[in-house]
Structure formats: structure tokens, C-alpha cells
């Protein structure tokens, strides 16, 4: 019985042909499943919880009674403030092209974070302080789709690859409550809460989202148009005009800086059970959500 040329699955199945019949009686778990548990250290070696926390404290944690600037003569840790940083899980242009080719994304409509999360291929967990998608340039040469994207972070190469095909790209900031609503809209609507009012970006992100080179949603549109041309000259392609009706439709669907979902305004309540949308009438609510 020579099995060298077979894959592991075929090898296993070929061996099973010559072994006794598998039945309830001869099934067994792995030997590692029934190993005895290691007993913890006892006596003087046993550490208390506080000591364990010192050893296995989270990245960037400052423990102890004396502050870090007194205990260490060097600059702050590389991981300082890691737990508070915003995370942007990446997605490449290659993956985006694959999603479009396999029919999981419809390019006739603008694509935002809710659309990407609905594919279940791109995974986002707002509870881990993940604030949105970072579009990376991997696969930029093979990117042929014409899309209208709204992402949270994008490199210059990714922007160029999208605009070369006649598409458009906007980088937009969403606060964590808006991201939670976008990551799973159905679960959010089932909670019965009104659609939140999107907050302005924090101080360290304002510069990025006001920069027309990043296609920020707070940038001046005329400067963004200039940057479109500049980027095309940098990468050596001609800017296709945005006169396509699909593009016009996409231009109409630009989100307001306070808006979370396309076609839905903050303060509205979407009831999936009633198939109705409830809008606030109270003046204070209207004023709050429109401010």
C-alpha cells in the first residue's frame, strides 16, 4: 500500500479501507484531551493576583506607585496608550475587487462601511476600538472596478487606483457609536434606539479629514477637484470626468457630516417590525439632531 503520492485526507481514507469498521465502541478522543491538569504552584512560590497583574498587565499599562516618568529615564513606551488608540483593520483593493467580481458588492450604489460589513468577509469589531476600514493599495494594478467608496483611511495609491477607473473615494470619520450602528445595522435597528448624530472627529484626526489630498469629507470640494488632477499627474493617468449618470447619483448621495446611514437622518427610529420610520417632531429634538 503505497500512499506517498496522496494528500493527507486521501491517505487517511485509504488507510480506513483496510482498518476495522469504525463504530461507537472504537472511537476515542485525542490523548492530549485527557492529560491531567497541572497543579498550580503552592506555598511560598504562589503569587497573589496583584503580582500576576504586574507581570501580565496589558500593553501600555502604568502600574506601581511611582509614575513612569520617575521610574524610567527614557521616553515613553512604544505601546504607550495602545489601549486608547483607534484601530483601522485593513482591507486591500484585491479583496475589494474579489468582492465585486463574486457579486457580493453592487457597484451601482455607493459603498460604505455598512455595505462592507454586510459581506461578512470584512470583519469589524467596534468593541475592540476598531473605527473603520483602512483601504490598502495591495492589488492596485489589477483593480478595474468603478466604485464610489466611503472609507475611514486610505493611502494615496489606493485613492489613485479608485479614481483612475472613474470612481470616487471619500475618507470619513465615524464615532464609535456610529460605527457600532454601521457594523450591524439590523442589530442596531432592533434595539429601537434613534439613529445617532455623528460626532465630529477628535483633535488628532481633524487634520486628516480636512486634507483634500486624503479626500477628507471636511475638505473644500474645489480643492479636492484640484487634488484629483494632481494625483493623476503624479501617477500618470488622465482623470475621467464625473459626468456618468451613475456618478451623478453617487454625488447626490454624499453623506452629511452628521449623517450615519445613506438616506436616513439622525434622530429617526427605524422599526423593522412595523416597517416604518418614526421621525422626531419635538422642537428640541429636531434642533439637537440638526445641529
Amino acid at each position, binding site marked *: 500500500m503505497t500512499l506517498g503520492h496522496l494528500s493527507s485526507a486521501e491517505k487517511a481514507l485509504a488507510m480506513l479501507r483496510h*482498518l476495522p469498521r*469504525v463504530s461507537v465502541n472504537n472511537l476515542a478522543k485525542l490523548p492530549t484531551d485527557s492529560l491531567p491538569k497541572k497543579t498550580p504552584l503552592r506555598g511560598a512560590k504562589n503569587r497573589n493576583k496583584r503580582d500576576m497583574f504586574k507581570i501580565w498587565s496589558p500593553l501600555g499599562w502604568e502600574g506601581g506607585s511611582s509614575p513612569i516618568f520617575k521610574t524610567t529615564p527614557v521616553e515613553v513606551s512604544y505601546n504607550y496608550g495602545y489601549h486608547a488608540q483607534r484601530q483601522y483593520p485593513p482591507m486591500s483593493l484585491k479583496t475589494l475587487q474579489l468582492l465585486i467580481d463574486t457579486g457580493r458588492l453592487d457597484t451601482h450604489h455607493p459603498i460604505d462601511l455598512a455595505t462592507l460589513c454586510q459581506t*461578512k468577509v470584512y470583519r469589524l469589531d467596534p468593541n475592540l476600538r476598531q473605527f473603520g476600514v483602512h483601504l490598502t493599495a495591495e492589488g492596485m494594478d489589477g483593480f478595474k472596478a468603478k466604485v464610489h467608496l466611503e472609507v475611514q483611511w486610505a493611502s494615496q495609491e489606493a485613492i489613485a487606483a479608485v479614481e483612475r477607473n472613474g470612481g470616487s473615494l471619500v475618507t470619513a470619520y465615524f464615532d464609535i457609536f456610529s460605527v457600532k450602528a454601521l457594523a450591524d445595522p439590523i442589530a442596531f435597528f432592533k434595539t429601537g434606539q434613534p439613529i445617532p448624530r455623528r460626532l465630529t472627529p477628535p483633535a488628532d484626526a481633524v487634520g486628516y479629514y480636512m486634507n483634500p489630498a486624503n479626500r477628507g469629507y471636511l475638505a473644500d470640494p474645489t480643492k479636492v477637484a484640484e487634488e484629483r488632477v494632481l494625483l493623476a499627474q503624479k501617477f500618470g493617468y488622465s482623470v475621467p470626468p464625473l459626468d456618468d449618470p451613475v456618478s451623478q447619483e453617487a454625488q447626490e448621495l454624499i453623506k452629511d457630516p452628521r449623517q450615519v446611514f445613506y438616506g436616513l437622518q439622525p434622530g429617526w427610529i427605524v422599526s423593522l417590525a412595523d416597517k416604518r420610520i418614526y421621525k422626531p417632531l419635538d422642537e428640541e429634538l429636531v434642533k439637537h439632531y440638526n445641529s
Partner: protein
Amino acid sequence: MFQICRRACQTPRNVLRLLAVPRYASFKAPDAAASNETVVSDLDQIPAEPGTAASSERPSRRFVFHDEDLDNESSRIRPPVPPSRETIFRQYPPESLAGVTRYAWLETLDASEPRTDRLLALHPEIWAARPRLDNLFHNVEWQLWYKDVWYTHERNPKQMPPGIGRPWPQKGTGRARHRTIRSPLWVDGGRCHGAQNPRSHFYMLPYMNRLNGLIHALSVKFAQDDVHIVRDLHIPSPDPEYIEDFIENQGWSLSTLFVDTDDIMPANITAATEKINHFNLMPVYGLNVHSMFYHSTLVLTESALNTIESKLLFGLHRTDRTDVAINSMRTPRPPKFDYRTY
């Protein structure tokens, strides 16, 4: 899920018995009808299927079948028609790393024509998966344990009859001091912190383990030549000897599990296997790892094969597989109290 499990736990014989009560209780003898006397028929007196050999052998039946609900085939709820083999392969083309496509002859339970000339292609992701016997073990263990409830009740000393009071005086005997013979120190005494309530062993195996358990079981059974695919479960005779001889002549092993899509089986095979404990019938929604390995041979109808394959492939390729797999590993908890809604 628990509902489904309970349903799947019922053996088809139980299902048939439950169904048989209204079905066969309404066999009335024409003579006794006037006296309003209901005769409950035995399964031996099942009306034979029309057009079979048995109907010619037993032309005169004492009882008349007149259950309108079950007699009317159009009113009965039938299982959904599974997709065809071509649809399954078109919808789920085998992955490049999956094994070689398996083939099986389409057979019948008719001794005059035991094998047709149709060769069925079996999806390699289901029938040529790399089997993990430990996963199969955990599936069987789960099936045996999740429905297990211990009703042990151990009494503490206060719950026991008081006994004789002090076994000996407190002082003066030189023996140990005891107030009652129901103390936990005594033989046949009470039990401290013993089991007082029913203890459930219910737990759910993660979704992917259950899914892979079924896939690995089918792969193992097929690799050991223990799977046979038949056109349907119709046999020409309700005689138990017929099915015994047939299986012996075919070289199948003794214990056999017949699986069909519909949970109301054909009358002949129901009658033939009723008294034979090692031949069992099962609807496809009840198919499980334990039953597959409890029986030596697995006989699937073609529609059952299509149903199993399409359902398992859907589970393997569903887009929310990660969510389902992660959620199945979490213990369900009541919803969190949200003060913002009040």
C-alpha cells in the same frame, strides 16, 4: 435547537407508532361497524401497497382503510424537494484543495434489479473529507450526554428519620461523643452538600464541530464501503425474510440504517423491519453521528443524499459561518438591562 434535537432523538419507529395510532385505529371490520366496535389492527395487517406482489397474495382483507387525512396524499405535508445533483455541483463547485470526487452506483432494494446503470457523483467536500476520529468521539459523547439528567437526591441528616437518638451516653463510656446516628460520619448517615436537585448535563457542541462531525462520519462510512444509495425504499414484499435475504445476498452488514427524506416510510419496508431490531428506518432530519456508527451499513435514498449534501454544503459555505460558529460557543445570556430605554 433544543426542539430540533428532541425531534431528532425520536427514532422513526416511535414516530411511526405515534402516527400509527390514528392511522390503524380506524380499521373497522365491516361486520363490527354496526356494533360500533373498533378493532385496532396489528402492523401485520397493513394494507399492501398497490401493484406489488403482496397485494395479489392477499386479495381478501378483513379491514377497510378509510382514514381520510392520511389517505389523501395531497393534504399531507411533504418535505421540500431537495436540489438535484447537478444543481448542487453547480452551486458549490468543489474547491481545489478538496479531494477527488467520489462515485457510487445508484442501487435499489428490488432483488430482481439490485443495481441500476446510473453512477452518482458525490461531492468531495462531504464524502472525501479528512476524518478526525476525535471529533466523531466528541459528537457521540455530546449526543449521549446532553439529554442526560441525574435525578439523584441525597438526604442530609435533617431530612432523614431521626433514628434511635443518642447511640450511647455522652459521658462515661470512653467512646466518641455522638448525638445521632444520622451524622455524616456514620455509615448510612446523611450526606453534607449532597445532590438535592436534578442535574442537567445539557451543553451544545460548537456549530462547526457538529457540522464536521456529520461530514467526517459520512466520509468514514463511505471510505469503508458502508454507504449505499438507493432509488427509494420500496420493496416488493412486506415479508421480513425478503429484506433479510436481500441484505445477505448483497453482502451488506447485519445492522442497517435506512434513511429517507420523508418521515412516513413506505408500508412494505415498515412492516418488514418492524420486528427486526437491527434494521431501522430514519428520516433525514434525524440523521446523526451516533446512529451512523451504531449501525454498520447506511442506506440513503437519492433524495436523502441530495438533502444531506445541500444542507452540509450550505453550512460549510454560508457567509455568516464565522458569526454562527462564534455564537454557538458562547453561553446564551439574558439581554442586558439597558437603562437608556427607560
